[in-house]
């Protein structure tokens, strides 16, 4: 059976608002002075019931990205920033998984000097065989990298055209779709991951029993309607002891300047209307969400919070959660991962950042 499956559903979601009204709405929000009068904190309180969580998808966002979907793999076009950001996301994911793995080994075996060549091997193999879910996979930028790293990857997106583009792109690549190319049997098979795409919302997966070693959702949180519900869904899909990786944009004057004023309006590198500043989420809001969030995966038990304590600057402990800024260096044309341990108020964490949290065992 093919590991790479057909998109389960090819029917596009009908947007609730038309694209023209969408654009008007965006135009207005851009004209609003800096959009900084919007709420000082975004509502991340846990909604009362599960049913509310099914409506986290914003239909006009989906319609908007569907229009851009053909451009996902134009590496010098609309999504060039995301393409260049991808290695940094992967670096963060890999290093965090490796760190947790080593911490675990240390607890079990104590410190060992004689690791020999194991470090290098670990580095390469750390994702091998993991079940990873990529929520909001878009054109599949992250999903492809996860699969190549050896993870059994499921990429889901609420836009069927995104899923179609992602599937089409992966079909050209024998590393991702081995079955379509029988002659590729000569290739080394040491890191055979797999890649599946489905047109689905994260909430749809809650009905299924499968849970994931890692759930990733990159640059999605700032596009959903009910971030608390969305986070809860993602959290629910993580196995106990598993990982949740997010990346999003902090709601600061700097992020307004860089991601909306510069990127969309002045340099026009990104289509105007891609971002809405009011929907950005601050790292402190994610941390406080996971300090309160304690829903266990086994019903009826009251689990412990994912983040049990923080240091004086509001930073969580290294073993529970981590916030790392990502900074674009224009003259090098690449993103770099900010050094760890900075304050949440450090300039590097004022715009794009990565967030990791681990589900308690």
């Amino acid at each position, binding site marked *: 059976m093919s590991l790479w499956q057909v998109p389960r559903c090819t029917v596009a979601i009908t947007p609730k608002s038309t694209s023209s009204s969408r654009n008007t709405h965006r135009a207005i929000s851009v004209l609003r002075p800096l959009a900084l009068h919007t709420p000082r904190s975004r509502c991340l309180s846990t909604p009362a019931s599960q049913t509310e969580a099914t409506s986290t998808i914003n239909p006009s966002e989906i319609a908007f990205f569907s229009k851009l979907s053909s451009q996902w793999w134009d*590496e010098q076009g609309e999504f060039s920033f995301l*393409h260049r950001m991808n*290695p940094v996301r992967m*670096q963060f994911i890999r290093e965090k998984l490796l760190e947790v793995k080593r911490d675990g080994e240390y607890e079990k075996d104590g410190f060992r000097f004689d690791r020999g060549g194991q470090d290098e091997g670990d580095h390469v193999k750390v994702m091998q065989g993991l079940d990873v879910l990529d929520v909001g996979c878009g054109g599949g930028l992250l999903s492809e990298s996860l699969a190549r790293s050896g993870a059994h990857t499921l990429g889901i997106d609420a836009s069927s055209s995104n899923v179609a583009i992602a599937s*089409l792109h992966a079909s050209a690549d024998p590393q991702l779709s081995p079955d379509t190319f029988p002659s590729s049997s000569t290739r080394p098979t040491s890191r055979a991951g797999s890649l599946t795409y489905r047109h689905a919302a994260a909430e749809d997966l809650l009905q299924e029993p499968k849970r994931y070693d890692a759930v990733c959702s990159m640059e999605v949180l700032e596009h959903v309607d009910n971030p608390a519900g969305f986070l809860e869904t993602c959290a629910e899909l993580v196995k106990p002891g598993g990982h949740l990786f997010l990346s999003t944009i902090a709601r600061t004057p700097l992020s307004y300047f860089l991601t909306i004023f510069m990127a969309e309006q002045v340099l026009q590198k990104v289509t105007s209307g891609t971002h809405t500043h009011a929907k950005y989420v601050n790292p402190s809001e994610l941390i406080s969400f996971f300090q309160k969030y304690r829903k266990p995966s086994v019903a009826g038990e009251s689990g412990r919070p994912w983040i049990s304590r923080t240091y004086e600057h509001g930073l969580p402990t290294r073993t529970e959660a981590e916030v790392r800024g990502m900074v674009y260096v224009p003259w090098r044309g690449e993103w770099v991962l900010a050094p760890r341990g900075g304050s949440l108020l450090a300039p590097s964490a004022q715009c794009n950042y990565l967030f990791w949290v681990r589900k308690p065992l």
Partner: protein
Amino acid sequence: MSPCIVSVRVFLLSRQRALPNVAQRVRKLSTGAASGPHPEERDVVIVGGGPAGLALAGALASYKHVRDSLSITLVEAGDLSSVENWSLNSGSFSNRVSSITNASQAFLKAVGAWDHVENDRTSPIEEMQVWDGVSDARITFTASELGLTAANNDSGVSPQMARLTENLNLQRGLLRHLSASPGIQISDKVKVKAIESEVREGGGWPLIHLSDGRTLRARLLVGADGFNSPVRSYAGISSFGWSYDTQAIVATLSHPPRTPFEPPNTTAYQRFLPTGPIAFLPLSPTASSLVWSTRPPLAAALTKGVSGVLALMINAAFRLPNVSMEYLHKVILEAEAAGTPLTLSQIKDEISWREKSHNIDKHSAFSSMLTESNQTGMPLEHSETLPPLISSIQPGTAASFPLRFNHAESYIGEGKGSRTVLVGDAAHTIHPLAGQGLNLGLGDVECLARCISNTVLQGGDIGSHTALLPYAQERYIENHKIMSACDKLHKLYTTTFEPVVWARSVGLEVINELDSIKAALMLSAGSSPKGRSSHRPGAAGWNRAAQGIEGLAGGFKVASMLGGAAADVVGSGLRQLLKSLPQKN
């Protein structure tokens, strides 16, 4: 396999624009199945088994995670077994040699290939002497002066600035290293018949049709296929450049060993004559290599002429004043044109007559006539400022080839030519005066291999533009600086126009006084070894060196315009400029 294609088609059919492509693709798939085998999927296809291509294969194989996860094929039209089994007697050397900088050597060691290079056939360069053929202004670089101590240089021998190696010795070493390391498929005696872009919505991958009937589908196609790179034409990358009206004569020179009172034969000599530089590169105590850039008709006359003439002329070219060299060139070419080439004794007479007219004592080091007369075992005064006298040319080693400057407009293909990347001579061809051609290629290879390794670690697609961009960014500017500097040096020194000669001799002497500039020039030759993970050394040094040469070249332009009268003013301006350089940095 079929359901997915159907669903993709359904999706595409809803988009008008995609219709023709889908139709073509489907046809392609069906005919492909009927008419021939499926293309073989390869992650990396390297076209070209020269030093750059072999070094890339070796560097990729040295990363375990790369070798484990990528399928790599190298395609070469020639017979590589003849290179792998190449051998010569210990005294004789092949005529194409390269000066491997310490940086390049460190890279080859890290990869594991240097151990397979026969060390006895290589020679360190511990000193360089460079002088102006017209004004005789001279600069001397030594390795120890530059702080290149043995600590920098883990082989434990005396400090070296570079190591002179026959290209074949290096290529053979790289091949032996490859056969010792698994995972790389080498297809030699196989020509690339055609390269086409697969027809596919969203951009196809390169399909490489080979003369043995196979077709390779490449995630990444590497052009290491030399100056007339077919990969470059496939990628639609244009290149700009020009040919110098110059041929380089190469030959292996035999000469008596240095006396015990002289420094050993580890000094490289280069004299900038207006016809082009002539370089003497040490290979062993009694053999050295020649690279002499000169006018094409002269190169033809010297390489194809009577045996013995070339050796005499080489000795003269390092010693006689330029006026006499020009006179000799004229005489040789006139005789050649008249169909009566000069005989050995005629040329000997001409040289000895010219020496007399310049008051060169025939028992001094500056005489080319000295062949057997110095039997005392005592070195002559100033003999260390000149290469040893050549006694003969090793048979069959004299040859010449045209010189050109060429730089591709980009190192990575885009659009229809995407998933291609150029390294080595396919990307750039350089004047050999600084001996940098091969080193630039090795620099490319080191950087590209590192780039591929990083991308594999991050799960990226090594053929993607995003993955290759760091390579292009790091190498293009770096190579361009070195190439322009060498080009400007060539142009600067091929003139006899008085103010320019004066300006440049001031330039050289000023440079001689300024240690920082000298160090920069040295760095430029990649002499300081660095680890493979860091960037190539000498970026700052190159900037400084390039600025210095820009300064000289700038002076050249102004001096040409103003002529002799204003030379003083220009000269002092140039001196100011050169003196201000170290502070600027």
